């Protein structure tokens, strides 16, 4: 899923400085699952902003609404009645797709992102998420023992490990495991190192960002 985290409160405050009526929109998709933008997070952020406004003596009304998803126009449509109430700002608590869809659907509104969209990843434990994919458009993890060197190697190298790998840890930080160490270890454990040894061919990056913004059109679905 897409992993996000909420922007620092000061940044969010700066978005709504001087504004009196704000709509906070959550999303029940990825950001609910990664505890960043679901109903509960919307309630918490709304409460924080209200408290802050009260403390500073500012007049502020915040309405809350959580959409099923913000990345599908049908759901974004559901906001129409609310948006008609004329908010000074709409804060989207989805990944950056959300505020973009909101802006496009409601072009007169000032829409702000409340989250930073961090990466595509998964939960290692409650409250811990790690990057596992960089959306390169051409998946090759089967060549690497089911691990992705594109997203999980600091240098995205295809023929590792590099000289910066030490005791299973990447030279950039002790917190970063060397994926190449894991890949190589796995093959060694399975006695298949020889099979793994040949050089990997140069990766086709044309399906990644190198080819510009991407779009998928599935002809059989588009009628």
């Amino acid at each position, binding site marked *: 899923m897409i992993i996000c985290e909420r922007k620092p409160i000061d940044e969010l405050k700066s978005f709504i400085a001087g504004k009196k009526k704000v709509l906070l929109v959550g999303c029940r998709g990825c950001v609910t*699952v990664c505890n960043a933008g679901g109903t509960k997070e919307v309630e918490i952020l709304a409460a924080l902003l209200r408290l802050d406004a009260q403390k500073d003596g500012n007049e502020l009304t915040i309405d809350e609404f959580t959409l099923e998803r913000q990345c599908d126009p049908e759901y974004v449509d559901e906001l129409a009645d609310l948006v008609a109430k004329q908010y000074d700002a709409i804060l989207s608590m989805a990944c950056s797709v959300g505020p973009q869809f909101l802006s496009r659907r409601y072009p007169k509104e000032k829409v702000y992102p409340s989250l930073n969209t961090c990466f595509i990843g998964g939960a290692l434990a409650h409250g811990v998420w790690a990057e596992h994919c960089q959306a390169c458009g051409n998946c090759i993890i089967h060549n690497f023992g089911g691990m992705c060197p594109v997203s999980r190697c600091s240098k995205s190298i295809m023929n590792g490990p590099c000289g910066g790998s030490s005791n299973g840890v990447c030279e950039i930080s002790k917190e970063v495991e060397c994926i190449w160490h894991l890949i190589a270890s796995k093959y060694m454990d399975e006695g298949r190192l020889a099979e793994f040894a040949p050089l990997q061919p140069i990766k086709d990056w044309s399906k990644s960002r190198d080819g510009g913004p991407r779009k998928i059109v599935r002809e059989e679905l588009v009628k």
Partner: protein
Amino acid sequence: MANTTTKSGAVMVIGGGIAGIQSALDLAEMGFYVYMVEKGPAIGGRMAQLDKTFPTNDCSICMISPKLNDVGGHINIEILTLTDVLSVKGSEGDFTVKLRKNPRYIDMSKCIACGECATKCPKKVSNYFNEGVDTRKAIYVEYAQAVPLKFSINAEECIYLTKGKCGNCKKVCPADAVNYEDKAEELSLKVGSVVVASGFDVFDPTVAETYRYSQWPNVITSMEYERILSASGPFQGHLVRPSDHKEPKKIAWLQCVGSRDVNRCDKRYCSAVCCMYAIKEAVISKEHASDLEASIFYMDIRTYGKDFEKYYNRAQDAGVRFVRSRVHTLTPTTDGNVILEYLDDLGERHSETFDLIVLSVGLTPRVNLPTLADSLGIDLNEEGFIQTQPLTPINSTRAGVFACGAVNEPKDIPTTVMEASAAAEAAGRVIAEAKGTMTKTRTYPPERDIKDEVPRIGVFICHCGINIASVINVEEVVNYCKDLPFVELCTNTLFACSADSLGKIKEAIIEHKLNRLVVASCTPRTHEPMFREALAQAGLNKYLFEMANIRDQDSWVHQKEPVKATQKAKDLVRGAVAKAALLEQMYQTKMGLTKEALVVGAGAAGLNSALSIAQLGYPVHLLERSDTLGGNGLKIFSREKDVRGYVANLVKEVESHPLIKIYKNSVPKTSHGFVGNFETKCQGPDGEFSISHGVTVLCPGGHAHTPKSYLYGENPKVLLSLDLDELLASNSPEIKKPGQTFAFIQCVESREPERPYCSKICCTHSIESALTILDRNPEATIYILARDVRSYGFREKLYQEARSRGVRFIKYCVDHKPEVVAGPNGRLQIKINDHILNRPLLIEADYLTLATGIDPTPMREEIVEVFKGQLSAEGFLFEAHMKLRPVDLATDGQYLAGLAHYPKPLEETIVQAKASAARVATILSKDHIMVGGVIAVVDPDKCAVCCTCVRACPVQVPKIVRNEKDPALRGHAFMEPAMCHGCGVCVSECPGKAIKFQFFTDEQLLAKVEALIVEKKAKPA
């Protein structure tokens, strides 16, 4: 069956401490009626006096207090306080007990524990609950959480009762509860069995003159120190010394005062708990004041229980100093300090000044135990405790009379709790056929459905005598509350909890068609169950009730500000009313259960558990991985008891019991379900099979650790303890050869960072083996190389015997371990530094036995995988609570026993296994289980299937399940109502707000909070 028996279905439990409490609760849940006989005015015992408990540092009173209320509110437990046992006639199954109920001078049905009497009582006396550190009045309750919470008058101290003058308490009592004419009365009861749990006395160090306890105020006992540390103690938890109330900077604990001392005290045994409580007191003291210097003077540190050794290590890391020495002289200084003089390990003399000396006093038999034993017709042992036998550790010398806890040997709380459950098993088993013949059940009128009714709230505001009314203007609060939204009736009452008021509440519910009730009085902790009961009796769902605590949280804490307190009372009631308006009917549903047990593992633990469960009348499925029953017990040789014979006999009994089905060569593969309804798939020799069971007992065991050190496996003369057992059992001539030297090394690969725990049994076992060798070969030379000799409890007597018969004990420390090499003539050479001479010593031995301790079973990972348990860092199964639930696993309906829990001697394994049977019977005795109520419920439509609840739940209850209406739709989280503990963690974590916490919903709590803060007077139209 039940109506043809001549046996009584009631049990007398003597003693209201933690042992008696656990026994009584188990028995009552097993289907027996319990008379709890307590000598004092309230139950709670020693545990109520303790500050914190080791090794978890939990608050002692906080842990026991809910249990006190469970006992107090149990329909099948009758507490008889201030009561002595006079005689027990008859025989097992049919005893006639004579009791004397001593006068309390207070009418328990009237006393509302307001404390007015004690305020006005002029007579101050020494407060024995605080170990005499401060005073109380002659009319008193022992402590704030006491059950029953009723005052009593001490006749010897009361001025009126001794001199006929005063009478203050009677004058001021608002409930007219004082009765100076109260007389002792004799009662006669019929019971089928008796559990003795009357506990211990703390050793009085006055007789050990060395310590000058009676002369100097700053030499105190550890029990006094517990009270000093306690927040409810004489100094409100401020750590000060008695003489001048100054904070001590340097404290010494002196161990083994009144223990392991035949010279001064005539106490041969080890009191088993003092090392741990001293370490705990030192650790807690350093939490009170981090710069405090804490020193413990000891002979051997005996941290042998689960997680004890880690606690000891942590204490050392925290800066607690340990000095191996028995202090020989104490001298006072003029400023109240005390100088200790002592010799260290190397014989050097030291002199050191301390601000406070804490004597780690031992446990002794109750002073009245001989009289009680006489009345019961049971024997005491030579130490004055109740006589039991190693293989029947809770049986007294009289059939049908069982003893548990420190009454038969000093022991810690977890072991006491295990014994208490085991005693419940024994006491219940001998009258199994009379189960349910004496118990009472409650019946209720049909419930009125109020779902579609507009809230009609009744509010009762309690004066609590003058407790509330002397501070809060109750009339004003009543008038105010009449106008709150949905309030139909608001009235005041002198004592809301009196029988008469409860009657009026019930009448009001019916007369005014009330559908919600609010009582503004004291705390739901003690009183909520009672008011809920009143609702049920009036035909209203019991959850339609809310309390406002205007006593503890208002009148008591704002005594000097009556106007503001009255305002706060209005606020609190307004909040309660706002929540009450949103309360919904909630139902617990009845669920059937499979009245059969699954026991995994057929060692001594599993066999005992299975046999006891079957003897209590429930079918058992006994699963054993190998093709033989018996486990480690078949390999043990003991000088004190015939272990192999015992186990063989046990196997025979299990094999011939009609209710036990044995599955050999079988292992569990998967298990599903919850308490009452488990389904376990197993793999047996003939393929897969499935067992339905209501409860599970895990006894997968452990085994001797195989060492890599000291030439084990290389030299045939290096043995493990069980190898030596085999030589002894087979009466090998090697043992009797003249001139033979036997050496033992203790703690082999134990109590080290890789295996940090103590295996508890090895010291005693090596000593026993040494004594057996000496029995057969008196000329043999024996060395035992040990770090600390941990012969706890009565095992100390074996240690003394071994020393007196010439066994040489040499202490070593972990940094200077012995070295073992093969010597000439096939002998072994052991090099060790002698701790007294401080010289290297060379021992030539014919045999070296390594005490390697116990490893948990290699099956542990699979077991926890199948049954969803948890393992400790050392690989032992985690119990539900280390102190008070040592036989339960975290999942309801699952229990454990034996070495899989922690290394322990056979007698403790037997106790834990029998305890597991009692715990099992508390479930299987019922025809159904009640589920639901205050639990978490998921709204599937809101669930994002994010797994947050699955990960956050402390007891692994939530699961993601398929959508029942349409499997093609997304699933959702689900909490099985029978498993949810109602802690609310998942509710607060759920990012989609999809989980509702019944009785504490967001709407209810927000309404309450909002009403508390914002005054809304207008009644809705």
